[in-house]
């Protein structure tokens, strides 16, 4: 493993969901660092490396797990910003939401979301969903060329 694993950005305002998601990642042995932010504004600050995150390490996340119902700037707005930004557009975004609302699903896909996961009620199913999501997007998924690490560290 030449390059260090890129972090997973988890955007979640609900502490219970946050705890459960982190538990699920731990359960699934997902090794990536999980960066958590609690609202949409913080998510955008992190992604654009500005404000409180101006000095963060320059690594881009492997995937953004995005809740939709967020304080300040909601998940749909965050998604719109990411997919409307030339530098961020290729960043994989997975909506991970409590909502079964169809309009959220449709709007998310219209905005270019990469996956849409409804959090299952059962914990086992939830763990499984989070595990698979993390595995797929953080580990398996082939990154687009500009997502790849700089060739300074050849394999």
């Amino acid at each position: 493993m030449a390059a260090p694993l890129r972090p997973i950005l988890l955007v979640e305002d609900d502490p219970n969901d946050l705890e459960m998601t982190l538990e699920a990642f731990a359960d699934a042995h997902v090794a990536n660092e999980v960066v958590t932010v609690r609202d949409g504004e913080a998510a955008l600050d992190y992604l654009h490396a500005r404000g409180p995150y101006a000095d963060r390490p320059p690594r881009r996340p492997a995937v953004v797990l995005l809740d939709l119902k967020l304080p300040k700037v909601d998940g749909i707005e965050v998604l719109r910003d990411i997919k409307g930004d030339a530098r961020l557009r290729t960043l994989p975004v997975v909506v991970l939401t409590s909502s079964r609302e169809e309009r959220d699903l449709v709007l998310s896909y219209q905005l270019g979301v990469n996956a849409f996961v409804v959090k299952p009620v059962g914990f086992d199913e939830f763990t499984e969903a989070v595990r698979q999501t993390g595995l797929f997007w953080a580990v398996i998924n082939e990154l687009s060329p500009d997502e790849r690490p700089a060739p300074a560290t050849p394999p």
Partner: protein
Amino acid sequence: MSEPATPLRSFRRAQATAVLLPIGLLSLLALTLGWEIRMLLNASADATRSARVVALAEKARELLVDQETGLRGYLLTGDRIFLEPLEKARRDLRPLGDQLATILRSDPEQTARLREAIRHVGDWEAFADTQLDQAHRGVRGKPSEILHDQRFGKQIMDAVRAAADRLIQAEADRATARDVSARTLGRRVLFGSTVWALAVGVVLAAFSRMHFKSLAGQYEAALAEATRQAEAAHEAARQTQALNVTLEQRVAERTAALEATNVELEAFSYSVSHDLRAPVRHVAGFVQMLTRSALPKMNEKERHYIETIRSSAEEAGRLIDDLLSFARMTRLELQWHPVDMGALARDARELVSREARGREVRWNIAPLPTVRGDREMLRLVFDNLFSNALKYTRGRSPATIDVGSERRDDGSVVFFVRDNGVGFDMRYASKLFGVFQRLHRSDEFEGTGIGLANVRRIVLRHGGRVWAEAALGRGATFYFTLPPQHGPAHPGPQGELGGPHPWRAGEARP
């Protein structure tokens, strides 16, 4: 005339009277005038006759004077020169008498007078012949005799003159009388005609006035009727318009209210979806985490508590999901298309058959018609009914599920799904299609009780009806109808959501 019902006929009658009456009255006047003119012409002819008679009589008197003068001259002088006028007068006198006789032959009195005159003339001529004869023969009477004779002759001549005078006088009288009567008659006829013409004029004027009034009355009545009808039509149109305005207003109000309700419903279900579902998930999740870390240390009772919390939380989650799907069923716009119900039933059978692996199930799906409706929703109807049928035939081997349809006289189609399962008590049939209503214990047959509620909602939204027949232990038959010529003439706006339908067969099952 006063019947407004037949104004045309009465108008024609009035028209005929107005033409025929004056023609009749004026013809009568013309006949009267014609008769009068004839009378005047007759009077004129009479006057001419009288004038001629008088003229001829005067001429005759002159001729007689000539004769008398001639005779006297000859007798006194013996000169024959006097004989010539005598002879001539005598010759001329005869045709005069004939002419008079011809003219007066229709008048007995005058004829009698003429004859008397002629008789006297005859006497005088006989006397004159005797005198002449004596003179010719040279017989000369004594002067006394001559005188006597002359006096005799004068007497005869006087009689002739008297007769002629009477004749003339009578003729003159007669002419005068005729003239007077003709004038009187003329005046009377003229007066009468004037009066007649005036009367006719007055009658016609009165008649015309009556007709005019009648026609004017009819015209006014017709006008009033037309006005009344026009006003009635106008009023009706106004009322209809007012009604339309009211209806449109009401529709707009209702639509606004419904839209507001719909918006509220959406907000509600969105809130339920996010806010109610999350804590339920958390309960389930944290119980699970607790289970993992603490299970080995728990006793049997504690494990049971934990398990109950877990299953209850999951059940609550399912109920919420079912409720949301039911709400969605109510809200989503129907997408009207022709739907092959046979193909739909076969697809649904494929899907639900996975639940019945290892069981012997005999499906009998008869040919089904194509209807108009929302494919995904109708699919859900079959999914739920088939899933139910499979579930409640669990103890049967083989389970039989019959699917069929029948077209009714009114064009609607009745579909049925019949199974040989446990059935149910018809006393509770009314509860069958209620939300979360169940006729079996959940530990007998799983499910939340939303499936048939969804079926009912979908069929109702298609304008159909749903019901069931069953007996305990002898299976159940579920029926639903779809009305003829399904779907609105102008399908409403398509659902704003173009994505895949959110229902899956397992999602809304009792």
